[in-house]
């Protein structure tokens, strides 16, 4: 292990900065998780703390009593898996084509894909297209198709594909492979890190979406998780202000706790996905390993 002094200082600085930032990120998150298990009145009167005096699972009780929630998990897992796979395929192919130097209509197509990020016709015509032209309402596809391609992620992929050395592709083409084969056999394998992160982001889009469900689905069996939770939270707020009998039964609806518990409930499964994908970002121990 031969390391120069400056390298060692540099390493220490890297550990230091990252430790601090990690701490900075984790403390509020912990406060939230613990807050979701704290008695509502204690939260409001005494604020958030890592060591609350009275623990309470009231927020979880309120949320988990609904059977619809478990169904919602099912729907969300399904649309996340199907949606992410489809979205990743479509976006990666599109991005590869757009990033390819031999594409003669590159600029207009890039612009074509960029404009939707800025301009939208608004909700009314969108609703008409999905429900009256495509007749997707009350179908699982209403939750999948409208999110299939995000310009932001397409551009992320484009920027990565641009860095792929031309020689790789040229060599394969000389062997007589078409772009499709080049793409699947050469480009995909070397693009795992970016595909993993874009896939993760697509999974997040699908996982967190409630809007499509709200607009296009009346059938409760097809409600995604986030929509169910949103309805519950919204209803609890309303109950606090509007519904007398609710007040008569339980005056203290844990609205704060429920908001936080909602985050904890939705974060669980998706956070498991991250470490699985992480191996693609942590590409060996590049710099040091060889030396050490």
């Amino acid at each position: 292990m031969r390391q120069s002094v400056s390298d060692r200082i540099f390493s220490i600085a890297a550990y230091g900065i990252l430790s601090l930032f990690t701490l900075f990120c984790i403390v509020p998150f912990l406060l939230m998780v613990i807050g979701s298990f704290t008695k509502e009145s204690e939260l409001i009167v005494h604020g958030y703390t890592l060591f609350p005096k009275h623990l309470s699972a009231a927020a979880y009780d309120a949320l988990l009593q609904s059977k619809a929630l478990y169904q919602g998990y099912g729907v969300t897992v399904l649309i996340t898996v199907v949606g992410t796979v489809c979205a990743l395929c479509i976006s990666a192919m599109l991005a590869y084509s757009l990033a390819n130097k031999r594409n003669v209509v590159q600029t207009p197509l890039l612009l074509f894909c960029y404009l939707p990020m800025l301009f939208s016709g608004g909700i009314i015509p969108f609703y008409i297209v999905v429900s009256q032209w495509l007749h997707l309402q009350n179908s699982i596809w209403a939750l999948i198709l409208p999110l299939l391609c995000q310009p932001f992620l397409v551009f992320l992929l484009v920027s990565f594909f641009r860095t792929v050395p031309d020689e790789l592709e040229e060599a394969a083409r000389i062997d007589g492979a078409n772009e499709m084969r080049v793409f699947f056999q050469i480009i995909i394998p070397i693009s795992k890190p970016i595909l993993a992160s874009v896939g993760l982001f697509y999974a997040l889009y699908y996982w967190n979406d409630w809007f499509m469900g709200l607009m296009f689905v009346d059938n409760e069996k097809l409600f995604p998780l986030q929509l169910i939770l949103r309805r519950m939270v919204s209803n609890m707020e309303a109950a606090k202000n509007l519904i007398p009998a609710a007040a008569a039964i339980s005056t203290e609806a844990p609205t704060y706790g429920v908001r936080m518990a909602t985050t904890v409930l939705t974060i669980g499964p998706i956070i498991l996905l991250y470490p699985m994908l992480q191996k693609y970002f942590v590409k060996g121990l590049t710099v040091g390993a060889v030396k050490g």
Partner: protein
Amino acid sequence: MPNGRGRGMRYKLTQIARNPFLYGMAVPGLLFFLIFSYFPIYGILIAFKNYDFQKGITGSEWAGFKNFNYFFTSDDFWTILRNTLLLNIMFIVFTTVAAVIISLMFNEIRNKYFKRISQSLIFLPYFMSWIVIGMLVQSFLGGEQPPVNAWLESLGLAPVNWMYESALWPWLLTVIRVWQGAGYLSIIFLAAITGISEDLYEAARIDGASKLQIMMRITLPLLVPTIMIMTLLAVGRIFNGDFAMIYAIIGDNSLLYPTTDVIDTFVFRSMRQLHDFGMSSAVGLFQSVMGLVFVIAANWITRRISKESALF
């Protein structure tokens, strides 16, 4: 150069016919944008219409630029515009810088477990909704005796009247933004760094470069195209205030409006009594057009410097 620039239509068509797969690959994605973004685009007309629920978008009467009037002649127009741009610029700059530093540092770390755990943890704030974040901020900085003030006092510092001091809030919001978004952005940068060829590092090490030198001469320059793309994408939305974030944190505290009120929160308040699709779409259209102007300008400049880093 096999690029289509400056060549005729016929050339382009033959190129396309000759490489069906290259263009075919783009079709599903292009079709998606056509159906879900370009078919409904006629909705933009609503900004120029007196919207009538029965007549629909195309059938409603034209209103000319009337829907734009109220926003441009608003009392606080310039303040709001300034706040929107200033906050967005601060968000973009600080989040990007933080994310770049984080991803570069991760690239230097050798302890696999530290790396993995820390990477997962900094991603967590991204999952917290703005409403929950707003609740935490309110709890620590608000109330009659904010807990943060108790800490300040125990350190011998003067307490701060957080909810009155509008000058502090652009910075507070920036800190919150960096905290929430830097982890997410650093994943993107890390993915780009991972794509950098090992040979380059090898060569540098043989030349006896220090870690810092390797970082500054290899990693960072190769990260620039990704940084630029991310920044350009953000520039397009520079006129769009982050309503979800700002409303969740600032809420209805009018004392903080002078520095935190952005276009989107202002429009929200203007439309509280009058729910006019036409007027709110007009503002949205203004934001998009301005964003487009900025992004095209920024893209043009970027393109002159490095084509790899430009959006289009």
